């Protein structure tokens, strides 16, 4: 934020803020504004994405989804939020009142704290910490404290079971997610998220995911463990509706309940953004190197910021859609399966990836023929996987097409962009 404020002052006013008498006042004001902006961004993401998720869920279940509030239900999230505002803030008699009140804020703080290091664009970042990745994993662990506090203080068996599961799950899955991110940290030689992104490039073969087979695998390992850390299906055991009512937030209502859900939805952006920043090239604009963005001035600088934000948001949105799609694809795992998957599969595999990357980085110099060939092969592999996926989707669609026409007399074709 300070760096961005400096650039703003120099470019707009033509002065060096370092020479001002009360610089810290300016910086404090800029940080407040920046925090408010980030908060607004989170709210404007977490709200509408609930509608998107419900509409996508509807289409995948052959129904339409919410479409009553506003045109096509686009402000359904406002109605839901207002409803939670107006509801009574119930605290069970037997609950541990101070902890019960505190827990949602811990969860929320743990979620929102990650936005300190999460970049939005080339220079749009609150603080480019040199220990960014470490900070990310540390601050997101506060969430589990909040969840455990919520489940414990509710004095309810559902809440307690949910909290136990959350603790076991999130702490277990920290290991493979951290190990798989370490692979790219080894490549870049930095823990700063901006540094990681700068090491990559705009084109797919510059991305870390397509550098080696090990980072390719590490991306999927990271994505899986990020899903589990964010309590997303198929790892939503802490709040498994069919088993635990609502898990750790069973006893919550009104605004406090909303805090939990808000953090959960915002987490969608966080897990996707981290995956994009670490593996998928972040905000890098194809054909424009980070150095060009740094050197640009005035309007060009700010349009580069806007474009890099758009690139980052587009990549993240695709991943968010995949997360949503996974929720409606895979059934929930059992508790023992969940831990087995972590300790028997994800942890050893991420270790193997780490070792593989170590050997690769030691044996192959960057920019050599072997390196370029491997990048090309991995990119082709990624494209081939996408093509195979598209063909498979088409196969599934075509398999039912004629039958549908025969049975209903209507065309089956109904693309996602066509709204009912």
């Amino acid at each position, binding site marked *: 934020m300070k760096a961005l404020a400096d650039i703003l002052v120099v470019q707009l006013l033509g002065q060096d803020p370092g020479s001002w008498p009360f610089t810290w006042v300016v910086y404090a004001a800029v940080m407040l504004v920046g925090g408010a902006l980030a908060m607004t961004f989170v709210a404007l993401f977490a709200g509408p994405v609930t509608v998107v998720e419900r509409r*996508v869920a*509807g*289409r*995948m*279940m*052959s*129904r*339409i989804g919410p*479409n009553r509030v506003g045109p096509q239900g686009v402000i359904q999230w406002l109605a839901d939020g207002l409803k939670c505002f107006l509801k009574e803030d119930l605290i069970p008699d037997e609950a541990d009142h101070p902890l019960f009140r505190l827990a949602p804020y811990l969860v929320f703080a743990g979620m929102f704290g990650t936005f300190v290091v999460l970049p939005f664009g080339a220079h749009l970042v609150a603080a480019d910490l040199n220990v960014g990745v470490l900070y990310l994993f540390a601050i997101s662990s506060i969430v589990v404290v909040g969840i455990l506090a919520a489940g414990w203080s509710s004095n309810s068996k559902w809440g307690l079971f949910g909290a136990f599961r959350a603790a076991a799950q999130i702490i277990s899955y920290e290991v493979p997610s951290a190990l798989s991110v370490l692979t790219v940290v080894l490549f870049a030689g930095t823990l700063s998220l901006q540094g990681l992104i700068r090491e990559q490039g705009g084109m797919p073969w510059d991305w870390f995911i397509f550098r080696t087979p090990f980072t390719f695998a590490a991306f999927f390992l990271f994505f899986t463990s990020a899903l589990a850390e964010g309590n997303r299906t198929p790892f939503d055991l802490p709040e498994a509706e069919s088993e635990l009512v609502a898990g750790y937030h069973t006893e919550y209502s009104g605004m406090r309940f909303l805090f939990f859900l808000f953090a959960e939805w915002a987490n969608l952006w966080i897990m996707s953004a981290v995956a994009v920043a670490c593996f998928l090239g972040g905000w890098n604009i194809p054909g424009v190197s980070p150095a060009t963005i740094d050197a640009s001035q005035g309007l060009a600088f700010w349009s580069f910021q806007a474009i890099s934000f758009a690139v980052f948001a587009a990549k993240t949105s695709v991943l968010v859609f*995949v997360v949503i*799609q*996974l929720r*409606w*694809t*895979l059934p929930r795992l059992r508790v023992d399966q969940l831990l087995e998957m972590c300790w*028997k*599969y994800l942890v050893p*595999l991420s270790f193997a990836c780490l070792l593989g990357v170590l050997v690769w980085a030691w044996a192959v110099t960057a920019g050599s023929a072997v390196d370029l060939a491997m990048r090309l092969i991995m990119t082709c592999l990624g494209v081939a996987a996408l093509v195979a*996926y598209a063909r*498979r*989707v*088409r*196969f*599934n*669609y075509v398999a*039912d097409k004629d039958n*549908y026409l025969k049975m209903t007399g*209507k*065309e*089956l*074709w*109904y*693309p*996602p962009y066509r709204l*009912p």
Partner: protein
Amino acid sequence: MVSTVQAAVGQYFKNISNAVTSTFEGMAVTMSWMFRRPMTIQYPDKIEKPIEETLPDCYRGVLEVDTGICTGCMACQKACPIGCIRIKVGKNAETAERMLERFDIYVARCMFCGLCSEACPTGAIHHTSHFEIANDKLENLLLRYVPANPTPVYKPKKDVEPVTQPRGQAYLAARKHCTHAWRKEERHGDR
């Protein structure tokens, strides 16, 4: 010993490949549903034709009486286990003809059992496929099938086919006579 270890290792990698391929296939299936027409209809806003026309003939909706073919035998009133049918048959003072003076069905009480329509010798009382009777005034659910002037009862004649009304028409007419407008009509207008 070696074979069990080999089998376990084989199983381990088989599990991984199973997880990857089944997730891949599952996502291909769910994605294909993004391009398919939803099965559901948007009742009551966007439907291709009135919902009543899509219901089967045997649907037991609101009762209606075709007074043109009612013989005034009161079999339905006797058959009704609840007593939601009120019939009054009088005599015309001049012609000494039996006149249907009143035929009320209190839909709020009706339990749609269909015993009256079974007892009816001519099929004058029968179910329609209308069911949207939710209303903010209870008296709106009192349907008067003889609203104003008494009508002569129907006398079956040999070799003459009785003139019947289309199903549902008498109900819609009776609905108009209610003192309070039906809420649905207030909102959406007549369909």
